[in-house]
C-alpha cells in the first residue's frame, strides 16, 4: 500500500477544494475581526412593513416533537411544534406579561381558593367544534389525568367546573399565580373535545390556533396552513409554515445558506460563521441554565460549608464568558434577567458567591476536609454541558476537590440521581417551566424531583407557598426576591452556573421575531417579505 502517496494526494485535493469553496461563502457580515462575539446579534426584530401575506416561513430545529399531543409528548421541547396549532387559555407575551388568548379575563377569589376564567366567544376548533367552557373542562381534565405528562404543572387544580357556556372555574389548593403561567404553556393548550373522542392526537393535532396542521412526516417535518376562521387574523402574517427536523448543526446552517430555511436554531459557536455568511442572528437570554447539583443527604454535601466552598470554587465568569463565548450569562439567580422574578438589585449575584478559591479552601478545612475529597458527578454527553463539567472539574481541582465525571444520558441521570439516589452530584441543563415557580417545584423544594436529598430551607418552603398564592407578578416578585436572599444564605443543593442564551439565525426578510421569555419558540406573528 502506498500510504504516503495516498494521504498526500488526499490532503492536496481536499486543500484545493476547501480553498476553492472558501471564496464563495463570504459577503456581508461586517463588524470584522475578533472582539466580543455577541456583537451584531439582535434581541428582537420588529414587524417590517410590506411583508408578503402569501409568504412561507420555514424553521429548522434539532429534534422533532415526541408527539403532537400536548398532554402525552415526553419532550420538554414539544410545545415549539404545537404553538401554531394550539391556542392556550393565556398568552405569555415576549415581555413576560400574561395576556388574554382563549380566556379574555381571569380573576382569583379573595381566599385564593379558585380562579375564574371568562372565555372568548365565537371561537371554533379546526374541526368546526365550538370552543366553550365544556371543551375547556374536557381539555383541562385530560391534562390532569394519570397519563398526562403535564399533570404536575396543574397539580394545584382540585376541580374544573363549568359556570356557564363561557366561564370556567378552577378550584385550587393554592398557587393561583403559578397556575396562570402553566395555562400559557402545554397544559393550557385547549384541544377539540371531538378530536379527543376520536383519538389519533399524537399525529393529528386539532386545536383553535392560527394554523392547522396540513401534513406531518414523522422524523422530517410538519406543514402548517392558515386557519380561515381564526379569531385574530392580524397574527396570521404568513400563509404557510414548515418546521423541519435537522439534528445535525451544520445541516441547519447549510439549509439556511441554500435558502431552504427562513430560520433555524444554531449553536453559540456558529454565531460568527452564520454572520459571515450574511445571515442575521437573534440572541437572547432563555430561562435554561447550567447548574451544579448535589444530593445533600450524601456526605459531605449536607454540610453548608462544603456547599459554599464548592460554590466559591466555581468560576462562573470563566465559564460563561470564556468557555461559552459570552453566550451564557454568569449568575446565581435561577431566573433570566427578563423574568419578573429576577431581582434587579441583586443582579448576577457574583459578589454574593464570588470566585474565591482561597476562602473555599479555608471553608473546606473548617468542615474537616483540609485535603479536599473525591466524588463523582453525572453529566450528559449532549449539548455543551460536558465542556462545562470539565471546566468545573478543573476549578474544583484547584481547591483540592476531585470531581470524577461520569457521562450518562438524560434518562440515566434521572434514574441514578433522582430516583435511585445513588449519585453524589450532577451537572445539568435545567429546562424551564412556564412559571418561575417551576424552579422551586422541580429543583429546590423538599418534594422536588431534582432534590434527592429532600432537604431545603424551611424559610424557602414557607415563602414558596406565599409566592404561589398571589396572582399579580407585582405582588409575587418581592416574595421571589426574599426567596433568593434566603437561598444565598442557605446555599441550596442546586446552584446555577450561567443562563444560556438562545441563538437562532435567520435570513433577510424575516420579521416579527422576539425571544420568548419561557424559552420556547412561539412564532406567533412572524412575517416574511417577498423572496425572503
Amino acid at each position, binding site marked *: 500500500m502506498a500510504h504516503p502517496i495516498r494521504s498526500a494526494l488526499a490532503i492536496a485535493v481536499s486543500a484545493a477544494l476547501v480553498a476553492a469553496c472558501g471564496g*464563495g461563502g463570504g459577503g456581508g457580515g461586517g463588524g470584522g475581526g475578533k472582539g466580543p462575539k455577541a456583537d451584531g446579534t439582535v434581541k428582537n426584530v420588529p414587524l417590517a412593513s410590506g411583508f408578503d401575506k402569501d409568504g412561507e416561513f420555514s424553521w429548522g430545529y434539532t429534534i422533532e416533537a*415526541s408527539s403532537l399531543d400536548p398532554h402525552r409528548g415526553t419532550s420538554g421541547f414539544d410545545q415549539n411544534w404545537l404553538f401554531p396549532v394550539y391556542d392556550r387559555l393565556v398568552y405569555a407575551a415576549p415581555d413576560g406579561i400574561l395576556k388574554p388568548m382563549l380566556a379574555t379575563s381571569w380573576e382569583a377569589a379573595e381566599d385564593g381558593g379558585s380562579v375564574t376564567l371568562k372565555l372568548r366567544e365565537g371561537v371554533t376548533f379546526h374541526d368546526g367544534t365550538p370552543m366553550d367552557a365544556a371543551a375547556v373542562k374536557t381539555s383541562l381534565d385530560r391534562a390532569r389525568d394519570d397519563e398526562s405528562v403535564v399533570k404536575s404543572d396543574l397539580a394545584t387544580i382540585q376541580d374544573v367546573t363549568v359556570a356557564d357556556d363561557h366561564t370556567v372555574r378552577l378550584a385550587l389548593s393554592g398557587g393561583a399565580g403559578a397556575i396562570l403561567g402553566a395555562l400559557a404553556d402545554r397544559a393550557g393548550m385547549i384541544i377539540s373535545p371531538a378530536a379527543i373522542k376520536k383519538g389519533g392526537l399524537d399525529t393529528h393535532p386539532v386545536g383553535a390556533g392560527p394554523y392547522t396542521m396540513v401534513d406531518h412526516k*414523522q*422524523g422530517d417535518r410538519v406543514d402548517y396552513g392558515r386557519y380561515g376562521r381564526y379569531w385574530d387574523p392580524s397574527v396570521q402574517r404568513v400563509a404557510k409554515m414548515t418546521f423541519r427536523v*435537522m439534528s445535525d448543526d451544520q445541516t441547519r446552517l447549510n439549509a439556511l445558506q*441554500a435558502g431552504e430555511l427562513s430560520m433555524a436554531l444554531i449553536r453559540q459557536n456558529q454565531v460568527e460563521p452564520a454572520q459571515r455568511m450574511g445571515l442575521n442572528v437573534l440572541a437572547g437570554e432563555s430561562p435554561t441554565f447550567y447548574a451544579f447539583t448535589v444530593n445533600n443527604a450524601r456526605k459531605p454535601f449536607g454540610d453548608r460549608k462544603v456547599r459554599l466552598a464548592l460554590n466559591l470554587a466555581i468560576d462562573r465568569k470563566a465559564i460563561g464568558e470564556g468557555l461559552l463565548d459570552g453566550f451564557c450569562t454568569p449568575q446565581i439567580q435561577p431566573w433570566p434577567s427578563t423574568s419578573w422574578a429576577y431581582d434587579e438589585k441583586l443582579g448576577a449575584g457574583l459578589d454574593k458567591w464570588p470566585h474565591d478559591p482561597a476562602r473555599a479552601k479555608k471553608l473546606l478545612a473548617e468542615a474537616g476536609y483540609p485535603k479536599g475529597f473525591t466524588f463523582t458527578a453525572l453529566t450528559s454527553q449532549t449539548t455543551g454541558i460536558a465542556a462545562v463539567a470539565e471546566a468545573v472539574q478543573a476549578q474544583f481541582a484547584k481547591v483540592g476537590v476531585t470531581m470524577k465525571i461520569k457521562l450518562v444520558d438524560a*434518562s440515566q441521570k434521572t434514574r441514578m440521581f433522582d430516583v435511585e439516589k445513588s449519585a453524589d452530584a450532577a451537572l445539568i441543563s435545567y429546562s424551564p417551566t412556564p412559571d418561575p415557580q417551576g424552579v422551586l417545584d*422541580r429543583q429546590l423544594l423538599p418534594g422536588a424531583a431534582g432534590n434527592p436529598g429532600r432537604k431545603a430551607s424551611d424559610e424557602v418552603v414557607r415563602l414558596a407557598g406565599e409566592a404561589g398564592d398571589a396572582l399579580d407578578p407585582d405582588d409575587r416578585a418581592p416574595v421571589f426576591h426574599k426567596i433568593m436572599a434566603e437561598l444565598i444564605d442557605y446555599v441550596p443543593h442546586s446552584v446555577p452556573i450561567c443562563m444560556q442564551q438562545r441563538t437562532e439565525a435567520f435570513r433577510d426578510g424575516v420579521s416579527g421575531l422576539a425571544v420568548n421569555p419561557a424559552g420556547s419558540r412561539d412564532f406567533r406573528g412572524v412575517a416574511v417579505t417577498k423572496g425572503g
Partner: protein
Amino acid sequence: MAGYAVRRLLTAVPLLALIGFGAFMLTFMIPGDVAATIAGESATPQRIEEVRRQLGLDDSALTQFGRWAGGVLQGDLGTSMIHRIAVTQMIGERLGVTVSLVAFGLLIAVLVGVPAGLVAGLRPGRWTDRLVTVLTTLGLAVPAFWLATILIIVFAINLGMLPATGFVPITENPLRWLESMILPGLAIGAASAADVARQSRSAVAETVGRDHVRTSRAMGLRPRSVVGRHVLKNSGIPIVTVASLQVERLLGAAVVVELMFAMPGLGQLTVSAVRARDIPTIQGVVLTIAVVVILVNLLVDLSYAWFNPRLRKR
C-alpha cells in the same frame, strides 16, 4: 433452483431469531431508562415506576423478549414507546428513503466502478490503469461525511443547482426525487464505486491473462465479443460479490448521510430510537435491515448460478 431459494429462506428464519435476540439483549445492556423519558421531566419516582409497570419493563429481559417475539410471529412489530405510533408504520414511511439512497449509491458504484475496472483491467499497467488506481485509492480514503460537505458547499450553496437538504418521495415528484438523491447518492456511493472498480480491475486482469481468453484473441475473435462473452462473464462472480457487499457498507454510511442531508430514513430513525431506548423501534429496524441483507445475499447466490452453470446442479 426454486427449491434452493426456499431452503435458503428457511435457514434465514433461525438466523433472524438469533439477530432479534442479540439486538434485544444488547439494548438491555445499554444503561438508561425509557420510562424516565416517558414520564416527563418533573415526574416523581413513583410515576416512573408506574410507567415501567405499564410498559412491562419490570419483567425479566427474557419475558419481554418472548412477548416481542410473539408479536413478531403474528406480524406485529409493536408500537414505539416514545412516539406511540406503530413501528411497522414508522419503518414503512422511512424505508423508501433508505432504499432510494442505497439503490442510488449502488447504481453509482456499478455504473462507475465496473467500466472503470474494465478499462483498467483490460490493459494492466497502462496510464488508464494507473489513473483508475489513483482515483480508487482516493475514493476509498475520502469519508462520506467529508465528501457530502464538499458536495453541499459546491453544488447546493455556491452553485444552487441541487438541494442541500430533504427528500422528496418518487411517488410525489420523480424529478424532484432525482434532484434530492444526486448529492447524497454521490456522497454515499463514491467509496463503493472505488471498491467495485478495484475488485473489477483485478478480476478482469486475472481473466484476461487466462489461456482461453488468449486463445480467443489469437483465433481472431472480435474484441467486443471477447470482452463481453468471456472476460466479463468470467469476472462476473467476484464483481457481483463485491457489489453485494456494498449494500451493507451503504446501509452503514446511510446513517451519516441521512443525518447530513436531513433525510428521514432508517438510519436517522435508528439513531433517535437508540438514544431514547425505544426498544420496539430498535428491534423493528434491526430486523428490517437483517431481512434486506439476507435477501440481497440470496439474490447474489442465485446470480452465481447464472454466471457459472456448474453451480446449478447443486
